[in-house]
């Protein structure tokens, strides 16, 4: 039986491969097959842990903050890899590896109790799509933010079309996550939307990315710094929606506090 104690072994080997892939991508001026293969292998190892952990727990590992961090680090690396494969930006793999490492280290530093119990409210067919789609959207937005950051550091607008495409994909997933949550809430609590703190922060995140997309579509093409500011604010709001909201006094009565 696989337990959380085995995570360190999987995390270390995956991380080493990701760091190797990041170096290979950064050193190469063109698309590096070596970087792609190393990152891909690291992802397979990480995915193997998630699958085995899922089987071992006999429930989807999506209940605790640590379990969502596990998915986020996996999806962030996956998004980084797909972006690298599609657009060949050598910056994206080092940056996504760095951000992924933060979440892997957080999981290693804060071991949690992972038991098989899943409260009745979470026993729904909406549970897996709602949470995984949300976390995937967060990872895509994280990737868009990293690219925007790289654009500012390098004083270039070259990444802007990719940032727009990523934000568009992230918004599609975020909207699906939010709406699947609304449909689930109707089945569980009787209301589609009840302005619970988590829902309110989801609306905050959604509205800022919606504003970004409309500004990019219908606004003036100048003001790149405004775009970066909006993406940075969106990224911060996303962090608040994911776990920051738990530290607010209003969250004590939230229906989204499960652990």
């Amino acid at each position, binding site marked *: 039986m696989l337990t959380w104690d085995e995570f360190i072994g999987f995390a270390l080997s995956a991380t080493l491969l990701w760091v190797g892939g990041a170096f290979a991508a950064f050193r190469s001026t063109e698309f590096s097959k070596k970087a792609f293969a190393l990152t891909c292998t690291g992802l397979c190892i990480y995915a193997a842990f998630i699958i085995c952990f899922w089987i071992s727990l006999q429930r989807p590992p999506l209940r605790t903050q640590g379990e969502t961090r596990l998915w986020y680090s996996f999806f962030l690396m996956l998004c980084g890899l797909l972006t690298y494969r599609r657009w060949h930006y050598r910056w994206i793999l080092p940056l996504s590896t760095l951000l992924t490492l933060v979440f892997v280290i957080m999981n290693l530093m804060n071991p949690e109790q992972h038991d098989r*119990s899943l409260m009745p409210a979470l026993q729904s067919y909406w549970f897996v799509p709602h949470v995984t789609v949300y976390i995937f959207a967060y990872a895509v937005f994280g990737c868009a933010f990293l690219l925007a950051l790289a654009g500012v550091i390098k004083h270039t607008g070259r990444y802007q079309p990719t940032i727009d495409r990523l934000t568009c994909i992230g918004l*599609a997933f975020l909207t699906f996550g939010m709406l699947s949550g609304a449909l689930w809430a109707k089945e569980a609590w009787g209301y589609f939307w009840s302005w619970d703190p988590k829902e309110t922060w989801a609306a905050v995140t959604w509205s800022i990315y919606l504003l970004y997309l*409309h500004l990019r579509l*219908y*606004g003036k093409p100048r003001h790149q710094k405004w775009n970066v500011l909006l993406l940075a604010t969106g990224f911060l709001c996303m962090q608040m929606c994911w776990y920051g909201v738990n530290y*607010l006094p209003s969250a004590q009565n939230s229906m989204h506090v499960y652990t």
Partner: protein
Amino acid sequence: MKKATLYRYWGTYFAVALGCQLTFGKCQIAFFAFPVNAALLLLGVTSLWILHKEKPQSAGYLVLSAPATTFLLLGITFVSCLLMGLGTLLTPDSWWTVFTLIALLAHLLIVIYRGMCRKRAHKLRFALTHIGLLLALGGGMAGSADTHEWRILVTKDQPTRQAFDRHGKSILLKDSMQLQTFDIAYHPDGTPQSYNAQVIIGDKSATLKVNHPCTLSWTDNLYLTDYEHVPANEQPHYCVLQLVKEPWKYALWTGIWMLIAGCVLLFTQGIPALPKKGGDETC
């Protein structure tokens, strides 16, 4: 239209919103119950259609249809939600929120009228996302006055018809309810794994469990919300049911699924293309 003029219009509108907020406090949502909400919706939809067809050069139309209005209203929505999220005095039933939602709905409606009359790329996606959002927001806002919730304490001892709202006011239900059986299973750590209640409603029996409400009528759903917490070897003697009456849920449901379909298209088709500017009106 000059931006200064546009901001003057919206400045006046939101000054009125702030004035209402400071003068009246919370909005009395109950005043807008059916048929007031339906009449206001019909009036809004019709008058904006007339504005779109007959006065497309009027200041009101230009203000409502300007891209700057989209940015402004989305910005205000973001700030309003942020203030609510930070737990400030702003609440969903405040006048400020009501004014913001009305402005958003009016703008959305004008954008839909204009967008559907123009030739544009990905028109289906545009229609699904925008009409879906309009139905979800409009259905939620207009329907909030007609949405009611009651709690019912259902015991094994005797049937009850009494239900209480959140203010403690009671009503009598059409059918009586009585708890027949309550089955509960526990995890090894003592936390509940699953539970369900067999309840007799009128002369019929229904099983209620979390995430599986019982449909009583086209407007009413019954939910299992709580039960008597007893030691693992005992069975609860009562449970608490929640009756939710929401006649507008179909508008919300339709809007949500339209938005989901629009999101699938947004993902598969990629970044939206800009609509052609002017001269392409087809209706």
